[in-house]
């Protein structure tokens, strides 16, 4: 900051430092696209410009006293909420993060006056200003003579700082990194001064002689009829004046350097802010001695139980009795693999009387390939996985996204340490030297595929008309939102337009985070999702898209050989004068090039400016990459180095990923353990899974959460070991029965005095019907299975040659959601889903009662049972109950089943005697009766709910 307003200091012993942001305290909200309706046309008061005044202008004493008493607690030198300092005149004139607070052109429109008169400031919980005080402030702010003198004393000297953002948003697309139309490159001061084909474009001191000014003044640049083609808006008169002024002043360098580290405490984040529980490193607590707490000693060999029982005992509660073994294995199998247990596995468990029987079940499930297929779904929800771009009618497909899905499944199956898993997804491209490698190994390729994590949000920037800078910023904001909610447990998006109102996240820190991602996500150097022909109007964008060819060398070679073989066959066919049809048939054997949807550092990032009020037309200070100060230190704490000597890559994301996966990071391990806890126990220890800040719910068991977080890291971030730990607790093995006493003392089960009864999720239900009916095609991985839409709008996954694959392999097209998913609460990814909501709506009943695929699967189940259980109804009912519910039928169910099968068979024979139709044969009626029975079971609570 280059201000030199020292003499303007009014209150003694305070020096003027910097600008920034006023707060608009309201109720909590998120506001990704806040465009204030009543945008004040405030005088630009740039951060770099005011001259030394000869005489000090002073805030009148009575006003200074009011400000001192009511405002300076939060808006003073050492604590500048919203970047605003009200304890001395330069600070008042400089304004805050949203711009000026005094509107020198229209004093009555001044923000400061509005905030005070509306009663918004001071905040509700602070002493109110008296009417007299408000009147005094009003008179002061409306005192034109005072402000005229004050602003004279500090008038702008230059506004070079504003120049670069204008060039970035209006010119760089054609005169920058990728195109230098007229051989002009405006990216650096040197290249701008050098000019282009027509010579110099800037004549220092002579704006009207400068080609740059002539071109923009005449409207020749940016060219009006090609604006949409390059997704930019016309330059505004105000911006032209800024450029002209800059040239008039001598056209000095306009690229503001990134601020270096500063000493001393952060003026935007206080020591008290840092004391909030979730911002402090987790410390491994000691395990409570449950025996000591309770007269009747309880076994608590698993530390989780010690923490839980301690709280339960305080309320005079014990755990519920243990669930029976069949219930347990069904619960565990769904929890870990998303599938019903195989009857043989249930029987083996029932018969295994060894003390390790339960642990063996858990280990077997953790080792099964279906574990990854199910657990990946959880992570894909958090990442916001989808196979299409969304937002526009075309819903452009993402034909390569599936590699990321497969990467997640394989990583989880391999129990890749979570810190590594995260590092790969945030900065895999900086972990491996893929550009110089002689051979791309599967591991290297995985590191690139993993970065697809930051390519998942809805994105319409492939089209020119929805590819403007604000549209790109929206995409970046969504990615940051995904990172914030899935990994950091913070509502970072709040700080995009103003400092977070509740958490100590200054707007500066949001933009520091953007600077971390800038070398890969740069709104002024944008990679479009796709640039194929036929996608809307012509685009001048010749950038390479988001796909990289670095699949494993073996896979690449196989594809190249295949293509070469096809080429050869085509050549041969042509040589023998084959028909066009024959040649087309050969051509159709071509396979698409194997590509990776990735995110990578491209070097040379543009500077990151804080956008006041989130508005890219209102660029504030430049920031350096950094982590949020409240979680690190004043300077954002990243050790940024290029990943290897000579690398183009900046190393920013890698430094961030390493910071995020520090063993003692306050949030990373806590947030993940909370997600896992929610998965097994139905609700988080922190119920607001993606909000560990002040507006989130406090943890119900803070010590347990910290213990789990520390244990997770101690176990080398092994997710499997933590699943094992949670599931081998006695807490997990409780029954789910509700009893009045428990309901009274622990109504929402916050204390875990029982296990929750849960409904199968959309994919569990779908997969379960497939596996029960024997129609599950178990083939893993690869491109997504397409979906088909019926004219009435019903959308169903397409079958493979062997049935249907698990739902995780079904295409997730944003605008063609499978009806089954829609009905059973499978989320829309906008941008991601942190917690599924279970609904109970009539269309679910209608779906299971009437949908054709459910009928089809009921038929298949009947066939399977007939072949496995034979003709005897009792055996059939038994087999069906084992397959669908993992247990033997009760005597009542057996009885009901036998009677109903007989009745159904008779009804089928009787019901079909409409004229002209043959009644079904005995065998056919038996099959139809059984199918009807299976259909009823698919509709029954016993199948849909897990105890």
């Amino acid at each position, binding site marked *: 900051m280059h201000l030199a307003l020292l003499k303007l200091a009014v209150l003694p012993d305070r020096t003027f430092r910097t600008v920034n942001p006023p707060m608009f305290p*309201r*109720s*909590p*909200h*998120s506001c990704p*696209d*806040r465009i204030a*309706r009543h945008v004040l046309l405030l005088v630009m008061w740039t951060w770099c410009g005011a001259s030394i005044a000869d005489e000090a202008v002073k805030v009148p004493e009575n006003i200074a006293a009011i400000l001192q008493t009511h405002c300076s607690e939060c808006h003073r030198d050492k604590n500048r909420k919203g970047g605003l300092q009200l304890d001395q005149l330069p600070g008042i004139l400089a304004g805050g993060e949203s711009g000026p607070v005094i509107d020198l052109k229209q004093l009555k429109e001044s923000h400061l006056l509005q905030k005070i008169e509306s009663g918004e400031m001071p905040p509700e919980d602070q002493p109110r200003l008296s009417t007299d005080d408000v009147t005094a402030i009003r008179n002061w702010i409306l005192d034109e003579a005072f402000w005229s003198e004050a602003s004279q004393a500090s008038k702008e000297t230059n506004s070079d700082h504003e120049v670069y953002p204008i060039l970035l948003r209006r010119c760089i697309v054609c005169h920058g990194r990728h195109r230098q139309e007229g051989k002009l490159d405006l990216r650096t001061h040197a290249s701008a001064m050098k000019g282009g084909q027509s010579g110099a474009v800037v004549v220092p001191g002579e704006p009207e002689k400068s080609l740059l000014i002539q071109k923009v003044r005449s409207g020749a640049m940016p060219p009006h*009829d090609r*604006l*949409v083609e390059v997704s930019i808006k*016309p330059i505004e008169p105000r911006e032209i004046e800024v450029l002209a002024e800059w040239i008039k002043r001598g056209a000095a360098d306009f690229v503001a350097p990134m601020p270096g580290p500063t000493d001393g405490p952060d003026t935007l984040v206080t020591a008290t802010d840092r004391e909030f529980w979730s911002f402090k490193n987790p410390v491994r607590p000691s395990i409570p001695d449950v025996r000591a707490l309770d007269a009747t000693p309880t076994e608590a060999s698993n530390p989780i139980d010690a923490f839980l029982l301690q709280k339960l005992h305080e309320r005079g509660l014990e755990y519920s009795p243990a669930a029976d073994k069949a219930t347990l294995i069904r619960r565990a199998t769904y929890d870990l693999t998303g599938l019903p247990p195989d009857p043989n596995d249930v029987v083996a468990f029932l018969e295994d009387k060894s003390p390790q029987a339960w642990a063996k079940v858990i280990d077997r499930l953790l080792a099964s390939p279906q574990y990854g297929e199910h657990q990946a779904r959880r992570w894909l929800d958090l990442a916001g996985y989808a196979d299409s771009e*969304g*937002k*526009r*009618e075309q819903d452009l497909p993402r034909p390569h996204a599936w590699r990321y899905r497969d990467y997640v499944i394989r990583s989880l199956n391999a129990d890749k340490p979570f810190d590594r898993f995260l590092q790969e997804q945030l900065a895999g491209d900086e972990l491996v030297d893929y550009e110089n490698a002689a051979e791309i190994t599967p591991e290297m390729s995985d590191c690139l595929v993993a970065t697809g994590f930051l390519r998942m949000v*809805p994105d*319409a920037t492939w089209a020119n008309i*929805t590819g403007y800078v604000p549209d790109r910023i*929206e995409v970046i904001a969504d990615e940051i939102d995904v990172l914030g909610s899935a990994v950091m447990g913070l509502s970072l998006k709040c700080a995009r337009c103003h400092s977070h109102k509740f958490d100590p996240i200054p707007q500066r820190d949001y933009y520091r985070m953007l600077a971390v991602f800038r070398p890969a996500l740069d709104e002024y150097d944008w990679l479009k999702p796709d640039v194929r022909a036929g996608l809307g*109007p012509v685009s001048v964008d010749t950038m390479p898209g988001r796909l990289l060819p670095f699949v494993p060398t073996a896979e690449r070679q196989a594809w190249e050989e295949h293509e070469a073989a096809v080429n050869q066959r085509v050549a041969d066919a042509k040589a023998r004068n084959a028909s066009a049809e024959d040649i087309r048939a050969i051509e159709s054997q071509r396979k698409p090039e194997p590509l990776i949807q990735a995110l990578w550092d491209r070097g040379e990032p543009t500077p990151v400016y804080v956008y006041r009020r989130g508005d890219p037309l209102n660029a504030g200070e430049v920031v350096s990459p950094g982590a949020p100060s409240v979680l690190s230190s004043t300077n954002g704490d990243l050790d940024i180095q290029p990943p290897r000597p000579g690398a183009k890559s900046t190393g920013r994301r890698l430094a961030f990923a390493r910071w995020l996966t520090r063993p003692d990071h306050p949030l990373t391990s806590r947030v993940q353990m909370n997600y896992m806890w929610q998965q097994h126990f139905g609700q988080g220890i922190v*119920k*607001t899974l993606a*909000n560990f800040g002040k507006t*989130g*719910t406090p943890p119900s068991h803070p010590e347990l959460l910290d213990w789990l977080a520390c244990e997770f890291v101690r176990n080398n971030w092994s997710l499997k070991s933590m699943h094992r730990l949670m599931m081998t607790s006695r807490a997990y093995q409780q029954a789910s029965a*509700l*009893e*009045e006493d428990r309901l009274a003392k622990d109504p929402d089960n916050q204390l875990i005095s029982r296990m929750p009864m849960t*409904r199968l999720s959309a994919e569990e239900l779908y997969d379960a019907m497939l596996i029960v009916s024997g129609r599950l095609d178990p083939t893993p991985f690869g491109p997504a299975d397409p979906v088909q839409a019926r004219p009435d*709008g*019903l959308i169903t996954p397409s079958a493979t040659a062997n049935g249907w694959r698990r739902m995780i392999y079904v295409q997730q097209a944003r*605008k063609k959601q499978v*009806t089954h998913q829609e009905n059973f609460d499978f989320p*829309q990814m*906008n941008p991601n889903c942190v917690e599924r*909501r279970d609904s*109970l*709506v*009539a*269309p679910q*009943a*209608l*779906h299971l*009662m*009437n*949908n054709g695929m459910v*009928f089809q699967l009921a038929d298949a189940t009947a066939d399977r049972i007939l072949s496995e259980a034979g003709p005897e109804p009792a055996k059939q009912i038994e087999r069906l109950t084992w397959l669908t519910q993992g247990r033997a039928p*009760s005597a009542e169910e057996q009885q*009901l089943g036998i009677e*109903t099968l007989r009745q159904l068979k008779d009804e*089928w024979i*009787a*019901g079909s005697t409409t004229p002209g139709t043959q009644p079904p044969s005995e065998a056919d009626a038996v099959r139809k009766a059984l199918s*009807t029975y299976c*259909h*009823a079971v698919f*509709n*029954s*609570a016993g199948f849909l709910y897990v105890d």
Partner: protein
Amino acid sequence: MGAALVDLLARDGVALADQAEAPADAPIATDMLPRRPHHAPKAKAVIHLFMNGGPSQMDLFDPKPFLEKHHGENYFDRIAGEVENPQAAGALMRSSFKFRQHGQCGMWVSDAMPHLARRVDDIALVRSLYTTNLTHEPAVYLIQTGKMGPGRPTLGSWVVYGLGSESNNLPGYVVLDDPLGLPVNGVENWQAGFLPPVFQGTRFRSTGSPVLNLTPDVARPESIIQAERSLRSRLDELHRSKRPHQRILDARIASYELAARMQMAASDALDVASETAETQALYGIGTQPTDSYGRRCLIARRLIERGVRFVQLYINSQIWDNHTGLFTDMKAACDRTDLPIAGLIQDLKQRGLFDETLIVWGGEFGRLPIAQLPPDKDERKAGRDHNKNAACVWFSGAGIQGGVTHGATDELGFNAVDGRVSVPDWHATILHLLGLNYDQLYVMENGLRERLTGVAEARVVSEILK
């Protein structure tokens, strides 16, 4: 897809409790029980006539003599950043339609809408709506959900979240889409976003089976259907009897009963044939080109009568998106909808429903005063490009002062200048008429208070209210 939810665990009225103290994990309403509004409502129900595509204000409701005078003059360079298709931009273009004042109030309507022109004393026209994006998808998202992107609850979802529904066997929020195709953004136009799925709009088709999966895909004898129903209920009873206090299981059984009732009620509500020939004619049913839209208008009335809270009508694709051929294509759009809409107003009035039903007409943006030329540059086939700075919308029915014209655009019709109405204002006005305060209708989403209007400040357009 959401029909009346029967989650008996849900607590009623939470959305409307004292807002200031709601904890981050406050339970939210997840049922369709009627809820108390914030203040006395004027409207019990809403019929939203969504005019996808962006109807041309200066050819329908906002006459511009200036354009007559300056027809053919270049204006593009002054608005270059506001044009979607700069290469096709032509000069200023006068309207090819003739304007006349109508009714007692003297409201200006062009001859493209002769039937609505007879009803102007029943509608309040707003000439000064503006929006923030000139591309269909973002603009449609904005007007439907308050944000220029997917993922947030739609207006109808917020309404039924706030008020529940008066109907026991029909969904509270019904969408009548055009059998010829979905509007831009497809089913996202009626999604519930982060609200519970029960508040999603349920699509009723005006032909065939009205709701997806409402009728079985496989035909079976009635006796089999009955036998299976009784089997399922006995299995569920056995299951429930072993699980006392699990109210979700009771609710699930109730949801099957509701599903059965819905099968009857939905078919009944769609039974247009049971209306008199006179009524059908009023809506233009049985004649072209009004039959299809007329049916939906009449079904809308039948749904409102049955207690449905929010009914939304769509037309296929974007019939108002007249980039070229404005004179013929916009006229065709009017011909399909004008008579049925006028008929709907008249029918509601004669049945005493007009004073409790709010009708809302409008699209996602307006159109430009300059021409958009077809590739062959033939001016006779010109149209108009999108304009985010001005659009006309109108309201009618409950709480609305008929005959009012609110707001004004500049002499070109390019920019709303007087009495500007933002999309959040438009939302707030509709909520207000239903007894809801936009600022107090919120849901706690991960510790944050989310509203239809987001963080925008909004103003009820009181000038059009009674």
